[in-house]
């Protein structure tokens, strides 16, 4: 299929069948999404630290300077507010910047431009800000407290931002394509632990996954694990290894939340575990738990449970880090407990 349509809804794009699929890693799918969109629409450009000749700290933009030129894969000085702030300016003038934070943790240095300028411009002044902030997040590799964080809840607290967190390679591509085409600032959380460990069939060419729609990753009747990002894979493995009838709902989008899919699954199974790698208090899990108890209390057979990191920074040493980040055994134990309730 010739992917030339410059506008159109995600639904329309989904309806047009892709030419085929190819097995890609999560990382390759992110690169493929960027490349596809940059070929299709010359207003799309990347800006970030070391993304040019070096190809980025994780090589997402490897080869981009050769194909698109240094202007469209712009090496920024080490200044995150400058990356986000200039992206806002370029976006309101009609470009579609894709900012790369080298690590999601570094968004703290660009937070002001993101939450005060980008997020609020449309509400305050009717100015659309079509931009994406790519946030390599997550731990599990001794990155320590500043290269391992899962800061998604920060963004959900800033109305005006959309927040997505794909778990599969296919969704990594499809959600990034939709994020680029969205007229709002979108925080795109890409879990570093999935980069090279997750591989699945990804549609080639056009492939957009609508923002705001969760996905049933595994159908089941006895309980629901509501998860996103790396926790989806823990939940899937737990379901297989326990050989239980567990439904896994992959949220994919954290803001705006697909409330209907959460409630539908909760009403079906009557038992809900919310799982994420991010810290516990006032996290996505708390929001989902509140939603389910507010809206589906009568249909629950057990209290809503959470499996999350405790409220501590991510420590460096492997035994310490593993004790903080939810592991497969923790997921299996949490499922067993809820199933037995």
């Amino acid at each position, binding site marked *: 299929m010739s992917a030339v349509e410059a506008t159109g809804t995600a639904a329309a794009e989904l309806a047009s069948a892709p030419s085929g699929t190819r097995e890609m890693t999560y990382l390759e799918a992110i690169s493929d999404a960027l490349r596809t969109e940059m070929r299709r629409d010359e207003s799309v*450009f990347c800006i970030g630290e070391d993304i040019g000749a070096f190809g980025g700290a994780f090589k997402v933009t490897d080869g981009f300077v050769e194909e698109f030129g240094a*202007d469209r894969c712009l090496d*920024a*000085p080490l*200044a995150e*507010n*400058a990356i*986000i*702030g*200039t*992206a*806002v*300016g*370029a*976006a*309101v*003038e*009609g*470009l579609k910047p894709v900012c790369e934070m080298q690590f999601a943790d570094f968004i703290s240095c660009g937070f*002001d*431009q993101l939450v*005060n*300028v980008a997020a*609020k*411009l*449309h*509400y*305050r*002044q*009717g*100015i*659309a*800000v*079509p931009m994406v902030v790519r946030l390599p997040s997550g731990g599990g590799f001794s990155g320590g407290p500043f290269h391992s964080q899962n800061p998604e809840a920060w963004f959900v607290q800033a*109305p*005006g931002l*959309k927040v997505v967190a794909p778990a599969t390679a296919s969704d990594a591509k499809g959600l990034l394509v939709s994020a680029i085409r969205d*007229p*709002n600032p979108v925080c795109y959380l890409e879990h570093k632990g999935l980069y090279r460990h997750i591989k699945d069939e990804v549609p080639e060419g056009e492939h957009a996954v609508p923002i705001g729609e969760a996905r049933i990753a595994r159908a089941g009747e006895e309980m629901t694990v509501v998860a996103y990002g790396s926790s989806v894979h823990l939940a899937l493995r737990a379901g297989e290894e326990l050989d239980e009838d567990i439904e896994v709902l992959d949220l994919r989008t954290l803001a*705006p939340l697909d409330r209907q899919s959460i409630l539908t699954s909760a009403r079906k199974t009557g038992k809900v575990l919310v799982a994420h790698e991010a810290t516990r208090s006032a996290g996505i899990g708390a929001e989902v738990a509140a939603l389910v108890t507010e809206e589906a209390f009568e249909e629950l057979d057990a209290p809503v449970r959470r499996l999350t990191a405790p409220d501590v920074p991510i420590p460096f040493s492997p035994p310490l880090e593993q004790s903080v980040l939810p592991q497969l055994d923790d997921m299996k134990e949490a499922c067993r407990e809820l199933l037995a309730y």
Partner: protein
Amino acid sequence: METADASVVARERVRELVDVPLTREDRAILFRYMTMMRASEERALTLYKQGKVPGSFYDGRGQEAVSVGAAFVLRPEDRMCILHRDLGAHFVRGVTPDRYLAGYMGRSGGVTGGKEGNMHFGDRMLGCVGMVSMLPDMALVATGMALKFKMRHEPRVAMTFFGEGSTANGQWHEAMNLAGIHRLPVVFILENNRFAYSTPNELEFAVDPVERAHTYGFPGVNVDGNDVEEVFEAAREAADLARAGGGPTLIECQTMRMHGHGAHDDMRYVPKELRDEWERRDPIDRYAERLVADFGFRADEVEAIRNEVQAYVDECAKKALESPMPDPALATDGVYADEFEPLGDGNAPWSRWSQHNGAGNGTAPVERRAA
């Protein structure tokens, strides 16, 4: 000094572009906009004292020459990020006082329909992105707009204002540095109004920020911010330089905030002699005298402009007071955009001036005139 040298070089490079003087009509317009800013802010302050303005009240009394002189140089397709002391720039772009006054009162007829208050507005249909309270955030947004102009080879300019207080913030450095690296077409207007809220210059920096410009690789110029034509000339050179591919300029305008940071501020920290000194340098009174002494205006012509503006502002205030308060149901609207809509263009007179002088309809690149 290197800063001065850089400025001289910049001036030389655009000398041929800026040799056309202001017309009598241009001067009347400059005076009119400064007067409109003063009259509108006086009217808004009255509304505040009458309890019709929620929150506090902020104005730019004494700084009228900066915003009007700088904004006047722009073309419609240029872009602005305007600060809270720069109401005149909004007027030059085409905002009318009734929308400003309605905005202060939280009415639906304000520029943002009540979503934003006091000076935190920008009319996107006039090519303006309104400020946020964190300063100088908009310096980066303007730099980003300039990045787009450069990437697309468009002969356009982004202009932004900031106070000397915000030059202490890291984002100021980030903006200057990025604009310098890529020689972006952005004009930085630094308003040194002597105080960041209550903090005086000597507690804000060890070296005057305009001296930093050359360390970022572009010229910094220091002008009398209470002389509208001096501001205009410096901004015109900077805009022409930027349009011609010469990169940014930092213009420091020396001025004085004649009111408190907000209406709640009694300015007890300002020495009386300092205020008296700057009162004598009032930009509007000075320009009124100069119009008569140097530019052939009759005193009654100048007075007629003042009267006409006052009548217009009175009429605008009436209209603003008739504007209804917004429907509370709208409070949750507009968090997300459904589609992208481009910014509109402004109505800045300099484009009219350019047209009169054969530079085309505002889209003709300056290089053509230079060649």
